[in-house]
């Protein structure tokens, strides 16, 4: 099977504190996944679970402590030292579109700069054509965008502008880090539908990083649920989200508010007191909040177990194919 991007055993350790009280925090712990060409792959999990760290490493902003990243059959180690986004067809968009652009700068200048840096056009006329063509992909046009400052766009529009900026260089992989969490729920669909269309028409691979499982289910084929640096469950969305196996995935799935007043939350949940505490935990990181916790969970970290085509890191499935008690 052809793979667009493969991440193998990626580990990133941050050290914090002074020399005397050094704390080692494993932000990404043995993370492995792959993305096929023209596929939308979701990396989901709560804030501070290592999603963004993983994205930064793929984009080359951070060096991994260990592990390999293979993009289009090329090992990242070979392009080391060069600018990843210039050497490879990877582009990124971020959570806050108003933070992406300088508020005192006209947005179209970013586009002309990109055209210049990547030598996409020889003259200004040509550059405008290239920019207009890309803007049309996201449902905007050059006329309604030229000479405007970021504040003159709405949040949804500006996010589409930042997607157009990323598409200008014709990447084959788009890293979208929480692209819809700052956008109105009603406008979210326009961004997510855009990913779907780009995937179908342009064969664009997308790494969709989010905590919004509803849009993840809607848009992607495969999903990985991340918790405190570990991928705890990975598989097709239909299986992972419709019948979540890991207790953490179950909690995430239950916590999505449904637009139906008859389906209110009845169970109470326990929130983590601090992130650090969970990162420092020996064994399964979820043990402190898990309703099915056993002794072994607190001693040893669980390994991946294949249950019905889904990889799950949980002792509940050790040796059996039983489903956990609800």
């Amino acid at each position, binding site marked *: 099977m052809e793979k667009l991007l493969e991440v193998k055993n990626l580990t990133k350790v941050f050290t914090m504190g002074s020399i005397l009280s050094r704390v080692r925090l494993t932000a990404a712990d043995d993370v492995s996944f792959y993305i096929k060409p023209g596929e939308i792959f979701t990396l989901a999990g709560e804030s501070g679970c290592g999603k963004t760290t993983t994205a930064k490493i793929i984009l080359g902003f951070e060096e991994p402590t260990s592990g390999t990243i293979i993009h289009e059959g090329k090992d990242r180690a070979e392009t080391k030292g060069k600018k990843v986004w210039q050497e490879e067809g990877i582009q990124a968009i971020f959570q806050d579109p108003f933070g992406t652009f300088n508020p005192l700068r006209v947005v179209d200048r970013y586009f002309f700069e990109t055209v210049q840096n990547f030598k996409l056009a020889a003259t200004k006329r040509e550059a405008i054509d290239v920019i207009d063509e890309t803007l049309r992909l996201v449902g905007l046009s050059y006329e309604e965008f030229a000479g405007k400052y970021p504040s003159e766009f709405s949040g949804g529009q500006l996010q589409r502008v930042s997607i157009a900026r990323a598409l200008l260089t014709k990447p084959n992989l788009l890293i979208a880090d929480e692209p819809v969490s700052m956008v109105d729920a009603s406008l979210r669909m326009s961004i997510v539908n855009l990913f779907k269309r780009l995937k179908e028409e342009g064969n664009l691979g997308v790494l969709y990083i989010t905590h919004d499982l509803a849009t993840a289910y809607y848009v992607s084929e495969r999903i990985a649920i991340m918790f405190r640096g570990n991928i705890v469950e990975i598989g097709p969305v239909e299986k992972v989200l419709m019948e979540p196996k890991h207790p953490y995935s179950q909690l995430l799935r239950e916590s999505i508010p449904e*637009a139906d007043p008859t389906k209110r939350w009845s169970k109470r949940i326990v929130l983590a007191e601090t992130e650090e505490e969970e990162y420092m935990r020996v064994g399964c990181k979820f043990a402190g909040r898990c309703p099915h916790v056993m002794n072994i969970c607190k001693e040893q970290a669980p390994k991946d177990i294949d249950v019905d085509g889904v990889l799950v890191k949980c002792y509940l499935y050790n040796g059996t194919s039983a489903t956990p008690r609800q």
Partner: protein
Amino acid sequence: MNETILRTEGLKTFYILDVFGTQKIVKAVNDVNLNIRTNEVYGIAGESGCGKTTLLKALAAAIEPPLRLVDGYIFYYVDGKAVDVATLSPEAKRKLRLDYIAYVPQGSMSALNPVIKLKETYQDFISSHVSGKTKEETIQLAEQHITELGLPPKILDSYPHQLSGGMRQRVTIALAALLKPSIIIADEPTTALDVVVQRGVVQLLMDIQKRLKNTIILVTHDMGVQANIADRVGIMYAGKIVEESTTEKIYGVPQHPYTKFLIDSLPQFGDKSTRQSVPGSPPSLIDLPSGCAFHPRCPHAMGICTEQTPDLITLDTDHKVACWLVGGEHGKTA
């Protein structure tokens, strides 16, 4: 039926801006009549830029230039007596706040003073509203309050940056509930939080409401959160309430096309069919479309929609809607 605790009458608050000699008027809240009752969670929903936050500012009596109260009244019912807020002196307003009404603004997780510990923030709040307490007593009160709401008391000894966003959000909500106010106004308290923490924040709001039996006015664009917590929901569009009813009716039998769009645009599990967001974008509040402000985006727009603004009419008990499709003299159902 519960008694009224807060009422507005034809409320109009506009931002009046002077841009290089030309006056621009942003009609952020345009003729809003609300009747909020005791012991209920009232949700206000709508897209960004429809005037939700401005309405809350007006309700909290925090109208400051360039925002101006153009017309209408805001009444607080303090001990059963109606008080016209606009006539109060700043000192009287300050006294009402935190004790009678508490406001949790948007992005309130960044509202805490970053250079002092949380217990000092609590002390500031307590000492400015309750007199005659020693330092030890105030800290004790804060600790007791935090524990009651299920937050770890050790956070009082930390600085805001040491806590996660969700924890800070819960601390500010707890702070707002400190003096047991009759009304808590929360502006987008769960936006930009992930789903599990969001559920924790909603859980905290519900706990407070159950304990104090007070009123919560909750603004959020997330229709899922509204469905989970609100007793009644008002849908706001371009500075007006276009539909208002009990949560069951808003989600069960929505009447306004805009409400239908808001609910239908949410993706559902087990259904991968293509969903559309509301077409177009919200109108500019400086230059509103004629007639019904929603007509340029409405699939059912008729001739009358471009000419006259529909009134908010009562369909049956507790269900009000402003749309020419429903009720009105030219009415026909969609």
